[in-house]
């Protein structure tokens, strides 16, 4: 089969590789009908995530048709149309029982690596480095899905792929970002990053009752899209100082909740700070760039919540712990526990409360995945989200 393979930093190739086979009795094989490129895939592409190997198949947002099931899978049958959530979860451990699916204790065979870096290992993830399991991803014609009786959701409706594909990752991620804010009536929620995840966080904040939503980004086309689909008030951080803008917009109080939907490759307008962080990264003294996170913390009102769904991989420097501690801030984080949200969000899509396909800007064949990555990274052609078809 053909698959999009990581061949090195900023080097991708769509290559012919073996078809997946059943390795565990609870596996299923899915023929991929649609898959997407995620913002977090860019961290792999740009070489920020360690433990990648040449030949690794990327992709953790995918859906398709079940073509084979292992002997212990009874909840799925050949022919079922499924969306597959990006974390791999066993359903039976301490974490899964608490619905903390991205923390499954059993699905990372390489847990020892993650433990060295993080203390304990999170769950394995499709297509996201060997530290997180060494599982091939779904930017391919077929994918092996472990614990197929736990993860995949069967789509019985007529809904087209484009409307349900994002249940795999970005829609639940945005939703969980908003949910972690514990939104109360009258709340003002500010979101850093008007990419697809950020926009789903904004839309979800609205669904959860936020009175005002503010979008922070530097690309006018993204701010426009966010305003159009979620009613978010735009703040362009290259045109205005974010702290000042928020001060004005919230009349001095600060947003009740701040969502970081940017993560480790944050862009910094201030040249001196940008140079500082880049130098430290180059010297490997800092692995992640926390510009958005710092700003979110500093801007948040006293006693408010900072909700982090942007991906971080390692260590950040100059973390404003004083601001956090002295002002009773709550910081909530997590790789999305996607399994928890599949059914409720599918229902919202079915009820037309949200149509996630609005974030799609480009549709490409799988063979053009490498070009797609470049376009997505460089925000060419007003690119917001690329869906690939194998």
């Amino acid at each position, binding site marked *: 089969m053909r698959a999009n393979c990581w061949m090195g930093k900023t080097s991708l190739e769509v290559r012919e590789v073996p078809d997946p086979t059943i390795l565990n*009795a609870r596996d299923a094989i899915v023929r991929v009908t649609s898959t997407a490129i995620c913002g977090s895939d860019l961290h792999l592409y740009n070489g920020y995530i360690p433990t990648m190997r040449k030949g690794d198949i990327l992709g953790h947002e995918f859906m398709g048709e079940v073509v084979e099931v292992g002997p212990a899978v009874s909840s799925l049958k050949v022919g079922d149309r499924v969306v597959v959530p990006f974390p791999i979860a066993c359903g039976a451990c301490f974490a899964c029982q608490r619905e903390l699916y991205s923390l499954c*204790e059993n699905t990372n*065979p*390489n847990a*020892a690596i993650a433990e060295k870096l993080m203390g304990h290992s999170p769950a394995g993830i499709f297509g996201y480095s060997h530290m997180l399991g060494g599982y091939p991803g779904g930017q391919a014609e077929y994918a092996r899905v472990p614990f197929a009786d736990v993860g995949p959701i069967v789509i019985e409706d007529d809904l087209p792929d484009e409307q349900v594909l994002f249940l795999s990752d970005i829609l639940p991620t945005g939703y969980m970002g908003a949910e972690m804010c514990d939104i109360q009536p009258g709340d003002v929620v500010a979101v850093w990053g008007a990419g697809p995840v950020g926009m789903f966080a904004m839309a979800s904040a609205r669904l959860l009752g936020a009175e005002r939503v503010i979008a922070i980004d530097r690309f006018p086309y993204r701010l426009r899209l966010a305003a159009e689909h979620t009613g978010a008030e735009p703040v362009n951080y290259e045109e205005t100082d974010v702290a000042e803008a928020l001060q004005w917009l919230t009349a001095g109080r600060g947003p009740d909740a701040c969502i970081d939907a940017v993560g480790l490759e944050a862009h910094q307008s201030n040249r001196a700070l940008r140079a500082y962080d880049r130098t430290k990264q180059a010297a490997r003294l800092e692995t992640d760039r926390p510009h958005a996170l710092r700003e979110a913390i500093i801007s948040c009102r006293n006693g408010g919540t900072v909700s982090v769904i942007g991906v971080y991989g390692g260590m950040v420097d100059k973390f404003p712990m004083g601001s956090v501690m002295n002002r009773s801030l709550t910081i909530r984080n997590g790789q999305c526990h996607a399994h928890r949200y599949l059914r409720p969000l599918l229902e919202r899509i079915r009820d037309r409360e949200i149509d996630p396909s609005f974030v799609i800007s480009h549709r490409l064949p799988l063979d053009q995945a490498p070009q797609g990555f470049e376009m997505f990274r460089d925000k060419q052609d007003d690119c917001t989200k690329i869906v690939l078809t194998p």
Partner: protein
Amino acid sequence: MQAKTAITINRPVEDVYRFWRDLTNLPSFMNHLESVEVTGNGRSHWTANAPAGRTVDWDAELVEDEPNQRLAWRSLDGSQVRNSGSVSFTPAPGDGGGTEVRVELSYDPPGGALGKVVAKLFGEEPQQQVTDDLRRLKQVLETGAVVRSEGSPEGTRSLRLVTQRPAQPVD
């Protein structure tokens, strides 16, 4: 050489004890073991994989068996490799119904060439090996089987961490 490690398994103490007490189950989560045969009177015959397709074997006896609490074993006198171990089972705190498993092992490898074989066999590094073993035990008891990925197709194994297959389907 000593090694000790612990893990919490989301199954009742009785289930975990029972699984370990049937020594023929040990190879299902201890990769270095090829087989364990129960020979009677608390004794058993263990066969372990050695480099170059060889095996090493020895006889052992249970020296402690407190049901649902503790097991201890040691190799019999005259074994090529003197080794002993113990495992304790404790209910995990709270109502969760889990089990805390604590394992302690020790090996007295002989010197010389055989010692080197033994060192390789029991240790890729005894500490790493016993930690891997417990992870696999947890997977077997909680999910039914050792969990594999294409990067680590045999499942959790410390040696594999440096020699990962690419994340592509296994041929």
